[in-house]
């Protein structure tokens, strides 16, 4: 069962209704059971893994809470992190490391065969593992109190709106809410349903519509010319944004219907005027996680290296980001390319700032537009490594883009363009005119209702209703 399945449309209202009917003190356990049932619809066998990570997280945080010795606490944290990382390593990275070692040994003359595993990657493992690590570190840093209710820890890691694709929640945000388990208010329901409506539009009308074209081109890149590949490369970031951004809104909206507030994940990333700004707007929960648990400690540790310490911290942080995104060289290269972009930006920051303030460029629309376009192009280029299966495939795509001209493979339907236009107009309004031309938030009930109805109508009439999975399910 996924958010876009018909089963979910039947499941969700029942869950919300029962949540509000049952006594407050039972709600944590109720949602825990619901979340496990939701997960079981996808991969029942891997519930064991989820329960094990929950048990380890709970046990180790309680152990940390029981000691006053900082060193001992740190040691417990490290062992906790190692233990929760083991399943992630085993399921996601074992084969990659195995193949790399085998290739290395073969290259130096040793022929050996280490057995491979062919088990399916547990859905959401990267997300709940990172949430667990975040909680362990927060407890060690005394940023959150140790949660004594195992039900709350279980629900924090498995809450059905975000278990499959995030946002990567933080203990500091969730545990206080899980203690209260508020009853839904009418305003929560309307706010949640609005977010879900827009999430469905982004996923079904934009992401899945573009996915048809992007998949057709990238899955058969050998037979497409550079013009078509360049065009698909330009569309791919929009597809990912609409896919993960749409999923995130569905997750945030679903939680909001139960009065729970999940952290946001996207903030109109394509209006960013620099790569660092883009990464403050794109997959925010993940980037904030990386910033708090990797980048900040690293840059602090390397502060004596000054700007080069920041560069090293950026490169290492985005190396981890690349590894998190996939057990493949392409993902690592993708992460390193982001690191290079951000490092160059950090190195040139002073010059750029002084030029901008000297000519007052930040207020000029054409400068903002140029910056947005450049950032988009750089990001789209880097996404080639995220989309291609191997480095050689990515290289062929890049070479074709710059060398092989031809006519465009025109298969993006009018529905696709229309949906992108609506998404762009909405994001543009939210970015530059947040208090004007309101539709969903209009004070006029007729305008509000018509705008809901139009979006609902578009979802069912032009959305791709038999579309694929969410892109981030694979992570």
């Amino acid at each position, binding site marked *: 069962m996924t958010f876009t399945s*018909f089963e979910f449309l039947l499941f969700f209202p029942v869950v919300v209704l029962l949540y509000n009917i049952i006594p407050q003190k039972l709600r944590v356990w109720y949602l825990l059971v619901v979340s496990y049932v939701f997960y079981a619809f996808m991969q029942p066998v891997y519930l064991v893994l989820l329960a094990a990570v929950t048990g380890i997280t709970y046990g180790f945080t309680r152990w940390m809470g029981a000691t006053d010795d900082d060193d001992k606490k740190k040691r417990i944290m490290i062992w906790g992190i190692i233990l929760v990382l083991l399943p992630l390593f085993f399921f996601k990275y074992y084969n990659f490391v195995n193949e790399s070692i085998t290739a290395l040994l073969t290259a130096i003359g040793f022929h050996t065969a280490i057995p491979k595993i062919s088990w399916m990657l547990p859905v959401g493992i990267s997300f709940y593992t990172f949430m667990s690590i975040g909680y362990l570190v927060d407890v060690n840093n005394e940023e959150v109190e140790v949660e004594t209710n195992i039900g709350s820890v279980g629900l924090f890691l498995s809450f059905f709106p975000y278990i499959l694709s995030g946002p990567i929640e933080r203990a500091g945000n969730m545990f206080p809410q899980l203690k209260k388990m508020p009853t839904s208010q009418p305003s929560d*329901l309307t706010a949640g349903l609005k977010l879900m409506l827009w999430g469905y539009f982004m996923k079904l009308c934009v992401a899945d519509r573009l996915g048809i074209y992007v998949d057709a081109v990238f899955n058969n890149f050998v037979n497409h010319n550079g013009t078509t590949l360049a065009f698909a490369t330009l569309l791919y970031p929009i597809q990912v944004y609409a896919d993960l951004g749409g999923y995130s809104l569905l997750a945030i909206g679903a939680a909001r219907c139960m009065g729970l507030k999940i952290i946001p994940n996207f903030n109109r990333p394509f209006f960013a005027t620099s790569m660092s700004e883009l990464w403050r707007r794109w997959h925010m929960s993940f980037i904030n996680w990386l910033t708090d648990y990797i980048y900040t400690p690293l840059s602090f540790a390397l502060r004596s290296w000054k700007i080069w310490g920041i560069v090293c911290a950026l490169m290492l942080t985005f190396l981890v980001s690349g590894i998190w995104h996939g057990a493949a060289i392409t993902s690592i290269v993708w992460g390193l390319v982001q690191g290079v972009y951000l490092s160059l930006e950090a190195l040139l920051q002073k010059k750029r700032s002084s030029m901008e303030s000297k000519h007052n460029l930040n207020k000029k629309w054409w400068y903002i537009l140029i910056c947005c376009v450049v950032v988009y192009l750089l990001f789209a280029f880097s996404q080639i490594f995220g989309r291609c299966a191997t480095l050689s495939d990515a290289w062929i795509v890049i070479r074709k883009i710059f060398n092989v001209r031809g006519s465009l493979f025109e298969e993006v339907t009018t529905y696709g363009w229309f949906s992108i236009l609506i998404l762009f107009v909405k994001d543009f309004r939210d970015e530059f005119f947040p208090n004007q031309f309101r539709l969903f938030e209009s004070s006029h009930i007729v305008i509000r209702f018509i705008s809901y109805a139009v979006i*609902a*109508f578009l979802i*069912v009439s*032009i959305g791709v209703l*038999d579309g694929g999975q969410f892109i981030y399910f694979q992570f």
Partner: protein
Amino acid sequence: MKNEWLKLLVKVLVFCVLLISIDFGYGKICRYMEERSTVHNPTSFTAEYTMWHVNEDVLIIGASEAQHSYVSKILADNLGMSVYNCGEDGQFFYYQNAMVNGILDRYCPKLIIWSVNPSFLSFNPLAKERIGALKPFADENAYCRDMLRIKSKYEPLKIKSSCYVYNSDILPFVVSSISNPVTDNNWGWVPSNSKASPPEIKEAKYVNETDETCLSIFDLTLSRLKKNNIDVVFVFTPSYETGVYDTLDSYHSLLNTTNKYGYPIIEDLYHHDTLMDSTLYRDNMHLNKEGAVLFTTMLTEKLNYK
């Protein structure tokens, strides 16, 4: 608080009424344009034309290989009967059975030429995925409704929404409705041109296992055809492939079922020496225009012989 909930409930009800009204109105508009488009441009709306309008003596049923390979005019000239090619690109077992049954609800053609392959009765995920093409007919055709259940148990519920039934259809309807009528001089046959380079021969991918659901659907369709005294000829349409299929379970199931009702299968044109020429093909699965003319001529001899 109670008042707020009451207000919300009223708003939700009003919104639902609004949505249902839009859905109903949209359904009516789409249905009108669908009928208009079918009359204006039958070859672009093959499913609708087959289900509602076709009335020829001889019908060709099949997927894209049928659509491109059977020249209706050659068959009509040789058989002395009117012919229409109902082949539809990318539509396989379930669709074809639904169409045959839909036609039988309206009239009885004299002969059906049904393009199949040795794995016709095995499970094809694409065929299941594309059952959705039958949505517009589900309202009035119980057979299509039953077929849609194969796709998902929720389909009968989903098709209550016209927006769902006509999902992504509005633009083709609008374009066809406002454009000038197109006369179909080829009676459903869609000639396909050769590509720059002819295809290279490849190994056919057959599926051994018979799908029991397909087998029972097929058996029911054939019994209905037999009951209506309609002649049916199954033809293995040529493909530029190699491969042995006579050991396949799915092939034997097909053979047994057609034998049960006394319907012949013409197999010898499938990998016929004359037709194993790459210049006659657009790709491995589809004959080009010249190939289609040659194959149909050869087929008429077989049909005359029979």
